[in-house]
């Protein structure tokens, strides 16, 4: 469990207030994919923009992105069905009922439970990947603040994705400059 940067939380909160949980959830999926794409091990991952599962595919790893206004995430039967198709399956959950928002990267077992309880100390069946959490929270914060209101206030999802793409490019330049 990690929290996002303050400025990223303000922007995500703005998105949630303006678009509502449904739309902001799908837009967050794009941002999450952009953040994962910046991580070498998930480079080339892509978001499944349809209603299918999982939300993001990265090789043999599937990601499900959920925003929740409580401490639990319900998992329907589909997850148990689709879990077997991936070596790793992670639930990325963002709690929006508390400020600042908190993020969990939960490793779902082969036989996922019906419900995942998002706690400070997680159930042993649904442990978190602390390294992934830290890295993802950092990159998600970066992507969100780099795209800013160009993303949160975009007129539609495609425009929002364009803002994310521009931010990803700029962030890569940042990283390259730092490496130099």
């Amino acid at each position, binding site marked *: 469990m990690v*929290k996002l940067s303050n400025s990223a939380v303000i922007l995500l909160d703005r998105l949630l207030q303006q678009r509502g949980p449904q739309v902001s959830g799908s837009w967050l999926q794009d941002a999450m994919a952009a953040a994962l794409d910046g991580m070498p091990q998930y480079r080339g991952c892509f978001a499944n923009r349809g209603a299918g599962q999982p939300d993001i595919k990265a090789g043999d790893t599937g990601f499900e992105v959920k925003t929740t206004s409580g401490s639990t995430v319900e998992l329907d039967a589909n997850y148990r069905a689709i879990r077997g198709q991936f070596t790793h399956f992670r639930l990325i959950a963002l709690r929006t009922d508390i*400020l*600042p928002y908190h993020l969990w990267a939960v490793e779902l077992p082969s036989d996922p439970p019906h419900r995942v309880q998002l706690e400070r100390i997680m159930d042993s069946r649904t442990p978190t990947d602390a390294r992934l959490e830290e890295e993802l929270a950092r990159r998600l914060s970066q992507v969100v603040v*780099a*795209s800013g209101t160009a993303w949160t206030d975009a007129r539609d999802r495609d425009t929002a994705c364009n803002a994310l793409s521009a*931010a990803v490019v700029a962030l890569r330049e940042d990283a390259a400059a730092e490496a130099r």
Partner: protein
Amino acid sequence: MRQLHPRGDLDMALRAEAIELQAHGPIGAVQLKDLAVQDLIVVTGPNGAGKTVLTQPLEAPGSAGSLTCIDESGAQQEYKSRGVQQSITHISSTHLMSGFRDLQSALALAAHATRELHGARILGQLANTELLKTGAAEGAQAEPATITSRRDAFAMADRQCGAQPRTLSEYRRLGRELSGFVGRAWEPSDLADGVRVPNEMQLQPEHRVLEGYSQVRPALEALASLGVPASGQPTAADAHREAAVVLEASISDALKQMGVGLGVAPSEPLEARASHALDALDDAIRATDDAIAALDMLRDCKRRAYTFVERQLVAGAQCDACPVCERPIAGKDLKDALSKVTQGQDPEAAKWQVAKKSLEALRSALHNLTLTHGESAKAAQREHAAVKGPIAKAAVGLCRAAGWAATVVAATDPLHAACDRWLAQHGSGPSEVASRDARTLQSSAKEALAQLDHQARQLNDGLERWQAKFQAFQRLGTVLAIREGLDSVEWTVSLDHVESERRRQEQRARWRGVLGSLADEYRRRDELAKASVIDDPGVQERFARLIRRLAVSQPGMTGLSFRGSSVTDSGHGRPAQLSEGQTVLVNIAAAIAVAGKVAGTAAHRPGWITFDEPTNGLDESSRDAVADYLGSITTADLPSQIFVTTFDVPFATRLVAAGRSSGRRVRHFELPPFVRGQPVRITERIA
């Protein structure tokens, strides 16, 4: 839902049999016995004697004392108040004096109404208590004030950035580009406003100038507009030179025709030589005139001679030879000669005439050419002057100054040298070369102007674009600075705290639901109870009967009716206006009307009613009216015991008398003044 008072608890109406105060009570051990067979029990005593304490077990038996009751089967039992009957069994002076509203509340208790209402009110208060509100607990998720205050500013600044990525690399890239444009070194600095803003301002693109260009431009413009004809067009100097050539040729031609020399050196100015030629022509013309005159004279002489000879011949004189020239003259020749002299033209003279005309034409032409030459000389002078002035000024204006742009220097230095050269070479007077050089100077100045204008334009080419870029740069810097400030604020929340608070709130919500539904049930019962008691037709009828009885002694009270929450004057349809005494009487009637409804019913066990100091504040006549009225209440009016406590002995005496005269069983107890430490000895007054 649980039945609050199962019918099994409430069997029959009770009658008070014995009151027993505990020894440790306020006035010590006191006992009143054999009360159940009495209808009216009056207790008198001075203030502070303990009358209210004595009757307190009738309202709420407890630590002060107990009350033994007898039910209708004759069985004795200890009365246990449930806290619901107090007001109906205990009507205080305050109730009696304060109008009907409070009394109504008391009366409603008779049918559990107030009990239910009280319960509903308590439950409602509980449900709305701060402890049960479902709002977020204070401090559970408190957003730091520094973040709250910057939220809007951050969003607004971020919106200004449009589609631009909000990254440090973008900020640096823009800074580098601007640095190249404005020609100033720049390094990204600390984003704090005090450092960032001045650092950014160094890169503000401003309108730029070619140093020195504004100073040399007037000189260049003057040179570019020199008064020389365009290339291909003849200059005044050219015209002057051509005029001189023509004049020179004309002089030569004239001299040649005259066959004379000029008489002046060829080095003399053309004007002087022309003047000499004109003079020579004048001389030649005059000589020709003389020759023509001589020939005319000669011809006249010949005519005269021939005429003379002819006359001589006609006269017959022999004349073989001319007397003038002595040449032989034949007669025929003479006639022909004479004819030639008199009638024909003189070829010689004609030749001289032609010569003269030729000379005159030459002179005229030479004269005109001399004038033309003179005019062209003046025109050339004017042209020269028009060029020389600007060139001289330009030579001054083009003097280089320190700090001038290199391009300006490179463009103007050659021009400056050319001006100086022109002035040195051609400053003395006009010439074809001077004009040509001036034209060259003009052309060069035009080129320099065009070149420098182009460079000046290029210098500010895209300035607006750069200024827009600078604004984007500044906006980005602002966003990054705000963001840095926001992210440096410590903003944490205890997840455990949030969870426990959430659970507490869920519990509170559940409690609110339970209490709310309980309160609703109580309110519903209350409405039913009110309707069953206060709006009961029997109560209304009983009240009307009691009021009619009052009307005998209190005229004007017959139109009163009791319904709902007030007594109204049915004759006028408005709340009745009553005196204090009348109010007490009406309230006693109302109390008895309601008590009569409930007394002896299973729902209301106590079969007694207590009036505590009913005459407080009343004058003597009102007091008597109350005593008479209360004493006149019969068991038909109220099948219950009536307890009256009062300090007013005359009132009590009158009440006891009235009660006995109404056929009621009456006892009158008297309490002595209370003395701490001494036992209270109650005495009974026997009529």
